[in-house]
């Protein structure tokens, strides 16, 4: 297979996962912001004494950001770096 073909495939794979993860982060975060903007009483409702749905979801958005970053790093360390190393070897 040609160098430029492999390069294109590798870059395309990285953009594919990068865009999916970015969209996932946007959906989660803007979903949260839209709830804040349009469903105020729902977010103020208490799940247990002291814990409102809003505070729980807010903390979960931060945790979700961690998880998405972790997914990307794991993918890139396992799949992307080896592809880059193979291409470099053929330079």
């Amino acid at each position, binding site marked *: 297979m040609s160098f*430029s073909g492999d*390069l*294109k495939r*590798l*870059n395309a794979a*990285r*953009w594919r*996962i*990068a*865009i999916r*993860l*970015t969209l996932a*982060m*946007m959906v989660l*975060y*803007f979903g*949260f*912001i*839209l709830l*804040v*903007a*349009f469903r*105020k*009483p729902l*977010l*103020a*409702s*208490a799940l*247990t*004494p*002291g*814990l*409102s*749905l*809003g*505070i729980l979801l*807010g*903390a979960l*958005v*931060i*945790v979700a*950001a*961690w998880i*998405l*970053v*972790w997914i*990307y*790093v794991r993918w*890139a*360390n396992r799949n992307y*770096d080896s*592809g*880059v190393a193979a*291409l*470099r070897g053929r*330079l």
Partner: protein
Amino acid sequence: MTSSLGEPNLIAIAGFFLFIAVSLGITYLAARRTHDAEHFYAAGRNITGLQNGLALAGDYMSAASFLGIAGLVALSGFDGLIYSIGFLVGWPVVMFLIAEPLRNLGRFTFSDVVAFRLRQAPVRVAAAAGSLAVVVFYLIAQMVGAGNLIRLLFGLPYELAVIIVGTVMLAYVLFGGMLATTWVQIVKSVLLLLGAFLLAGLTLARFDFNPLALFQAAGDQYGREILGPGGLVSDPIDAVSLGMALMLGTAGLPHILMRFYTVPDARTARTSVSYATAIIGVFYLLTFILGFGAMVIVGQDAIRGVDAGGNMAALLLAEVVGGPGFMGFISAVAFATILAVVAGLTLAGAAALSHDLWVHVIRGGHASDKEQLRVARVASALLGVLAIVLGIAFEGQNVAYMVGLAFAIAASANFPALLLSVFWRGFTTRAAQASMLTGTASSLLLIYLSPAIQVDVLGNAVAVFPLRNPGIVSIPLAFLVAVAVAVLWPEPEAADGFSELERRMAVGAGETARSNGRSRNP
């Protein structure tokens, strides 16, 4: 309750001087190794992933985060958390879309990447305009925070306080460059995390280490609605606009983007973002505790009594749970925080002025290392003086809000052009220029027309533009202008350069000589 805030606090003063002494020592050591532009802007590209992660966190967790958000949560409850969360979600975007291409394609500034396959001069001028607008807004917020902090703790006049901060910061940047600035960020990051953990621990000790008991106490005292969204986001569209600015702005902040050049390769850039995201996330989760802790333990009236904006809430909380000595420690940490961020911003501004404007536009890409370094130092000194003057002029502005505006400018001016330049073959010089100038001008104009300036500052009855944050208009506008211009005026040479960009983005510059854009690589 009575507070000793406003009287000189010996531990705070000792802490200030200790931090200044340590950081000047670092600067002295770094200065001996800073002989060329590679060291001045990029710390010789020898920073490790963990070090850069801490330094990124240090650049990012500004006075707005520590003092501003704790104050916002203390005074308005849940609403303040919207800032905490928004400031974090920008980091995954930086990781997925920007960090690795940036590291492999550029040398010192993000305009290196935008200009990679485009015509140098027009792109650099537009990028420098955007960078400088962001840096100036961000600087004002930090200087105002620093001035107020020192005034309250030392009993010094506000103006003198601003001059002291500006001068000390300049000493790091002028002599130690990026290496000194990076180590100052690392020391500050560790101190800030330690301080926030101690303060949160001492606070939670009063609630059997159960955050829910703290939130419940806040609800009992101030009404349960304090735990849900309230008046701060009265306009839903404004809430979305602020959210867009916070999420996409991080990926356009010149002082953050510049940090990716201090590491040796793309993989280390990736590692450093994951450390930064973890550290910053923990810190923002702690702001939940600090804010509600100050609300319950100090009380909203006492916080407002010291500073109407609530910016001193974390310090008051420290005094109640740990005594004046602990408050002195936390104040010194807050001071270190501001000083470090100001140094990072000044360096980014100096890079835009000297690397982008002087070297690439005025000197056509040819300037000796000695000349570059001299111009960078003169630019830093000018920016330091500008920061002092603006800090004095804007006394009394709300710190977190000003930073929100800097994010809106960054998201509109820098982010669209940066993303499109690495992602879209059809992107052109004209499109980059139009997008960056439109983003900068539209966000600045809409800020001027917003209620914050028209109603609060100028005293008009209504504002022409109803939103307090321009992001929802100016970010899509910058993208639209970019796409429209690129489609109407295609640039075949720029498209030809895309294959080289794709190669470099994946494998890096490797052992081949670094070429920087088409002007030097015909």
